[in-house]
């Protein structure tokens, strides 16, 4: 069967080199079902961000193929919602303005102003930041800024969502609250999502599968099934036996490959 008929995100023989010729990301073969969420964990320099940047269309030079439902990922009608670690908000635009500009560029809501405003309001309130609409990003806390960035990513209704260590700069309490909010919203609007993290717990809490990138570029990628934990209620995950088992399994892979 031709791989181009597989639905979802299909990464084939993706390889990225720096200009110096050094390998930034060894060969990656991966298929992510549509409406699936995988977490990616790997040591620094393993190419986690590079992988996301290639899919987001921020790296012009890569070899291999990136397909979504059989079409090239960088096709015009495939929308990518990116949530970078530094939130990626435009400091000179208000919270409302940041979401608005993304929606305008993607032509979300069909260019209808009332519809767009309604959607912005909807996403701001589902992230719990409706009262911050007129504030500027520099006056917000990290957690609040990341809520805005996530609201923006959801608001354009992307087919693919890419999250690059979105919660790693936040304190533990804020991080857990945002994990919950993110997951609830994702379950309501399941885009094909790749979630990069360096936190083992976060990888287990949020992914249907967990992709472990090796430290050596020649080593192969390890993919762990995480359906058992993913199916639980979010608040029960951490205390469960499966969570503990999964942690042990990941640590073992980390010891071997990192």
């Amino acid at each position, binding site marked *: 069967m031709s791989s181009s008929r597989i639905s979802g995100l299909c990464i084939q023989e993706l390889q990225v080199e720096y200009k110096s010729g050094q390998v930034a990301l060894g060969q990656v073969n991966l298929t992510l079902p549509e409406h699936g969420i995988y977490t990616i964990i790997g040591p620094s320099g393993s190419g986690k961000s590079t992988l996301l940047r290639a899919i987001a269309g*921020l790296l012009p030079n890569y070899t291999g193929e990136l397909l979504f439902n059989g079409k090239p990922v960088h096709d015009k009608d495939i*929308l990518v919602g990116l949530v970078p670690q530094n939130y990626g908000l435009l400091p000179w635009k208000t919270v409302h303005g940041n979401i608005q500009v993304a929606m305008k560029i993607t032509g979300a809501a069909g260019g209808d102003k009332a519809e767009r405003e309604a959607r912005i309001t909807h996403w701001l309130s589902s992230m719990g930041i409706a009262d911050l609409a007129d504030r*500027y990003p*520099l006056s917000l806390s990290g957690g609040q800024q990341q809520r805005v960035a996530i609201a923006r990513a959801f608001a354009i209704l992307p087919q693919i969502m890419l999250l690059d260590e979105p919660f790693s700069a936040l304190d533990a309490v804020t991080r857990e609250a945002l994990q919950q909010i993110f997951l609830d919203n994702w379950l309501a609007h399941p885009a094909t999502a790749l979630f990069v993290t360096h936190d083992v717990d976060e990888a287990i809490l949020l992914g249907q599968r967990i992709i472990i990138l090796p430290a050596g570029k020649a080593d192969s990628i390890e993919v762990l099934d995480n359906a058992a934990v993913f199916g639980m209620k979010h608040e029960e995950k951490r205390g469960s036996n499966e969570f503990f088992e999964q942690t042990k399994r990941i640590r073992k892979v980390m010891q071997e490959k990192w």
Partner: protein
Amino acid sequence: MNKRITRVLRLLFVFLCMNLVWYIVYLLMNHPILPSPGSVYKAMFQLEGREVLLNVGYSLLRILEGVLLALVIGLLIGLLMGRSPLWNKLLDPVVYLTYPIPKIALLPVVMLFFGLGETSKVLMIMLILLFQIIISVRDGVKAIPENTYDVLTSIGAGTVQKFWNVTLPGALSVILSTIRISLGTAISVLFFTEIYGTEHGMGYFIMDAWLRLDYPEMYAGIMLFSLVGFVLFLLVDLLDYKFMKWRR
């Protein structure tokens, strides 16, 4: 609001003190080359309103045209240099070599080429501002972190959209501070250019009064000219307040 009132009061107080110093010097000198504040203000209010308006209007128009021209050209070149390494390499030596030329020394050259009329006056102001705007726009654009563009790039924003949403607002603060700094120079140059080949403008007005030995009117002209500069300064402050809200 209260803060603003105290600030205005403080400015007024300083203004009054300066007038007081002026008055004391006037008493000490007791010579017609320095009239008293009172007689200067009297002369100012005796000026024909229409004439003053015409002179101030001409000066403002020249500054406005020069600033706009410098902004348009400077933005274009500065952006090109900021975003494209190739253009930066090509144009950097040009800017580097021409920047230190004292532009005021080019006044006779500009007058030779463009005559004594409006064109050369506006061009002089433009020349003074242009290089500083080019350099500050280039540096301002370069200072925008590359990843600021990431999210917009990933959702397929075009060059124009990135310019309006990232590059221009990102460089705006440096552009505003450059205009603020070079506005003073531009006004001085305007004065020089208005000495020749015109019968309108504040520079002409002041030199005309000087030649007629009408010192109170000359000082009144200087005061009015300063007022024009002050108003322009306030205008830049206003723009800063409107567009730089996000930094506070």
